[in-house]
């Protein structure tokens, strides 16, 4: 029996772009509820740091491209399913204004054994970083002055994702 048989979830249930916060405990419960085939649950949470490039960050605002965001995340999840034997997947990404310590992104993956869930989770995050249309604007304090900056994409993120190809 294929792993997916007990784990059929619609695409819309796998992806959520939202302004509201999420509960890690609730998301883990959803990945586990009625899921008797998978022994591994791997979750990643990304949070807002109070520092970036040596500056003090006060808030982070996230913009996205509605429609394309969901489509690109669905494609990444599909690629992960083609590469690894994974069960349930959930990706949550928050948008709007966030404060220091707030949760930004959640990726949860289940699989029979840990290797598939670990790898697929990292793969999904790596490709989200370079292909999903989100943009971060930070408000920083630099030399006593408040300023707003759009973040620059990092070559290291592209290099990391290319390791999967």
């Amino acid at each position, binding site marked *: 029996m294929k792993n997916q048989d007990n784990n059929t979830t619609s695409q819309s249930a796998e992806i959520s772009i939202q302004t509201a916060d999420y509960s890690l405990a609730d998301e883990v419960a959803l990945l586990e509820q009625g899921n008797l085939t998978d022994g591994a649950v791997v979750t990643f949470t990304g949070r807002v740091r109070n520092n970036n490039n040596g500056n003090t960050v006060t808030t982070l605002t996230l913009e996205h491209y509605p429609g394309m965001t969901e489509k690109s995340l669905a494609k990444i999840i599909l690629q992960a399913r083609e590469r690894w034997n994974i069960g349930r997947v959930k990706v949550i990404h928050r948008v709007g204004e966030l404060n220091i310590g707030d949760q930004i992104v959640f990726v949860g993956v289940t699989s029979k054994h840990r290797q598939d869930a670990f790898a697929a989770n990292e793969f999904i995050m790596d490709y989200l970083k370079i292909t999903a249309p989100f943009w971060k604007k930070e408000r920083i304090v630099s030399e006593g002055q408040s300023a707003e900056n759009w973040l620059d*994409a990092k070559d290291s993120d592209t290099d990391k994702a290319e390791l999967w190809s």
Partner: protein
Amino acid sequence: MIKIVFFAALREQLDCAEMSLASEGVKNINDIKLKLSDNSEQWQQVFSNASLLSAVNHDMVDGEHPVKSGDEVAFFPPVTGG
């Protein structure tokens, strides 16, 4: 007509979130960039940036990608989510 949308720093630099462009004489993404560059020096500067990304109907594409009337075309800077 072709619907064109702009995001993030690009939207702010152009002071434009969305516009329409007549599809006559427009075959691909590069043609749109050329047409929009005629708007002003500011637009010309924005569209000469090699790191600019583009999408057609929610799929990331390169400059040679064909475009037709009714398509939604997007231009935006490299993404920084996660």
